[in-house]
C-alpha cells in the first residue's frame, strides 16, 4: 500500500499513512487521489494545472481518500445544484479535514432560514454602495504601495502589495489594530494552509482569544468600526450575544485577511505573462472590469466545504450523513460543459458568469469589496508601472488548502 502508484502525485511525497479506506458505498471508479493540501503543482506555484488535471481526468463527482476521506464536487452543473440544496448539502460544518475544535462561524456555518438572520447585517455592511465609499482609501493605498516598489525595478508582489493592500483595508473596516497585521497573517496561514487539524485548532483558539478581547473593548466603548456596529445589531429582535459576536469575528477574520490577496496574485501573475493583455488594458482601461471577471473565472481559488445533513442519492452516487464534501469551485469554472475553451483567458468571452464567489445563499458577502479592490489594483499597477514580467529568479510560491494561496510572486520591470 505504501508504494501504491498514484496518478495524481509526482513529487514522491509519502502520503500512504494519510489514506482513509474506501467506504463500502463508494464505488471504486469514483475514487480519485486528490490531496488538496499536497498535490505537487498546488504546492509548487501552479495550482490550476492540478485543477485542470482533475477536470480532464476525474468524474465531476468523486471521493478522495486524503484529508479524512471526502467527496469532491468538481462539475459546474453538479455544484450549481448542490449549493442550492442546503437542507442536504449543509454548511453547518465545512472544514476539510475535520478538526477537533471547529468553532461555529456565522453566517457561513448556518443554513437557511437561520442563515438569513446572521447574514443580513453583513450584507448591509458590505453592500455595493457601502464599498464604493471606500474606493478613495483603496486607491490611495494601492498607489502608495506601487510607488514604493517602482524605483526598485522588482518586487515580491505577494508580500509587498497583495498582502498589505486588502488586509489592511479589511482590518480598518473591522477595527483591528494594524500593528498586528504580521501576527494575524501567521494565524490565518495556520488556519487555512495547514493540513494538520491540531495546528488549525490551535490557530482558531488564538483568533477567538484575540477577537474576544477586542469585542470586550468595544462593549465598554464603541468606535467607528464594524465590530462596534455589529454589537448594536439585533438578532431576531434581541441583542446580539457575546458568542455570536465571536462567531461573526472569526468568520470575518478568516474571510477578510486572506482571500483577496490571492485573487490579486493570480490576476497579476496572468498579466505578467500576458503582455498583450497588459497593452490592451493600458490602452483602454474601461476593459478592466471585464478582465477582473475573466481572471476570477480562469483562476477561481476558493473551495468551501459542506457536510451531508442526511443520506442522499445524487449525481450517480450515494452520500452518507456526516460525510464531508469539498466544493471545488475552481474546477467548475474550468468545466467545458459551461465555458467554451475553458483554459483560454478570453476577454471577449460572452459568458463570464463564474462561481469564484460561490453562488446560492452563501454567495461571498465580501464580493463587492473584492471586485472593487481587484479593479483598483489592476488600474494602479497598469498606470504606474511599465510593462511588468515574472521574475525568473523568484518564481511563484503557493500553498494548498481550501484556499489555493500564494506565499510569494516575484515581478520585474525596466527602470526608467
Amino acid at each position, binding site marked *: 500500500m505504501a508504494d501504491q502508484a498514484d496518478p495524481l502525485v509526482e513529487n514522491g511525497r509519502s502520503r500512504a499513512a494519510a489514506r482513509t479506506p474506501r467506504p463500502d458505498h463508494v464505488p471504486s471508479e469514483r475514487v480519485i487521489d486528490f490531496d488538496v493540501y499536497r498535490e505537487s503543482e498546488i504546492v509548487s506555484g501552479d495550482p490550476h494545472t492540478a485543477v485542470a488535471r482533475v477536470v480532464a481526468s476525474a468524474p465531476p463527482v468523486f471521493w478522495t481518500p486524503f484529508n479524512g476521506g471526502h467527496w469532491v464536487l468538481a462539475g459546474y452543473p453538479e455544484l450549481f445544484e448542490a449549493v442550492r440544496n442546503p437542507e442536504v448539502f449543509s454548511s453547518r460544518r465545512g472544514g476539510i479535514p475535520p478538526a477537533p475544535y471547529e468553532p461555529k462561524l456565522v453566517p457561513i456555518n448556518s443554513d437557511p432560514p437561520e442563515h438569513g438572520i446572521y447574514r*443580513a447585517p453583513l*450584507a*448591509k455592511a*458590505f*453592500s*455595493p*454602495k457601502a464599498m464604493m465609499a471606500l474606493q478613495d482609501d483603496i486607491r490611495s493605498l494601492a498607489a502608495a504601495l506601487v510607488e514604493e516598489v517602482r524605483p526598485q525595478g522588482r518586487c515580491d508582489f505577494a508580500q509587498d502589495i497583495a498582502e498589505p493592500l486588502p488586509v489592511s483595508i479589511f482590518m480598518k473596516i473591522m477595527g483591528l489594530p494594524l500593528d498586528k497585521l504580521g501576527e494575524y497573517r501567521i494565524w490565518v496561514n495556520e488556519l487555512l494552509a495547514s493540513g494538520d487539524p491540531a495546528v488549525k485548532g490551535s490557530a482558531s483558539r488564538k483568533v477567538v482569544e484575540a477577537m474576544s478581547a477586542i469585542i470586550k473593548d468595544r462593549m465598554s466603548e464603541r468606535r467607528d468600526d464594524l465590530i462596534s456596529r455589529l454589537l448594536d445589531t439585533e438578532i431576531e429582535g434581541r441583542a446580539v450575544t457575546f458568542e455570536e459576536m465571536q462567531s461573526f469575528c472569526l468568520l470575518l477574520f478568516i474571510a477578510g485577511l486572506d482571500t483577496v490577496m490571492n485573487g490579486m496574485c493570480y490576476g497579476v501573475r496572468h498579466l505578467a505573462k500576458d503582455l498583450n493583455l497588459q497593452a490592451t488594458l493600458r490602452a483602454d482601461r474601461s476593459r478592466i*472590469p471585464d478582465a477582473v471577471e475573466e481572471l476570477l473565472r480562469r483562476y477561481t481559488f476558493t473551495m468551501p466545504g459542506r457536510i451531508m445533513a442526511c443520506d442522499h442519492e445524487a449525481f450517480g452516487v450515494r452520500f452518507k450523513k456526516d460525510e464531508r464534501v469539498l466544493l471545488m469551485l475552481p474546477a467548475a469554472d474550468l468545466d467545458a460543459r459551461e465555458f467554451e475553451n475553458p483554459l483560454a483567458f478570453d476577454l471577449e468571452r*460572452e*459568458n463570464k*458568469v*463564474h*462561481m469564484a*464567489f460561490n*453562488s*446560492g*445563499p452563501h*454567495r461571498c*458577502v465580501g*464580493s*463587492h469589496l473584492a471586485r472593487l479592490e481587484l479593479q483598483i489594483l489592476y488600474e494602479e499597477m497598469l498606470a504606474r508601472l511599465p510593462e511588468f514580467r515574472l521574475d525568473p529568479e523568484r518564481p511563484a510560491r503557493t500553498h494548498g488548502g481550501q484556499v489555493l494561496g500564494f506565499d510569494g510572486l516575484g515581478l520585474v520591470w525596466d527602470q526608467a
Partner: protein
Amino acid sequence: MKIIIDRRGCVGHARCEALAPEFYPLDESGYIDSDGFDVPEGQEALARRGARACPEKIIRTVNDPTGQDWPPETK
C-alpha cells in the same frame, strides 16, 4: 420585450446592476429591488446583458426580438 425577476431568489451578486444600473435598482443591502419592467425599444441588448449576468438565473427575458429568450428552456 419584458424582463421578469424572481426577487425571492436574489442572493445579492449585484451583477445585473453592475452591467445595467439604470434597469436593475438595488436595495440598501445590495439585493434587487424590482420585479421586472418593460424594456424600452432600442435598449434590449443592455437589459439582456444584465439578465444574463445573473449567476442565480432568476432574471428572465420575455418576447426577446431575437426570438431566443433567457434563460433557455432546459430539460
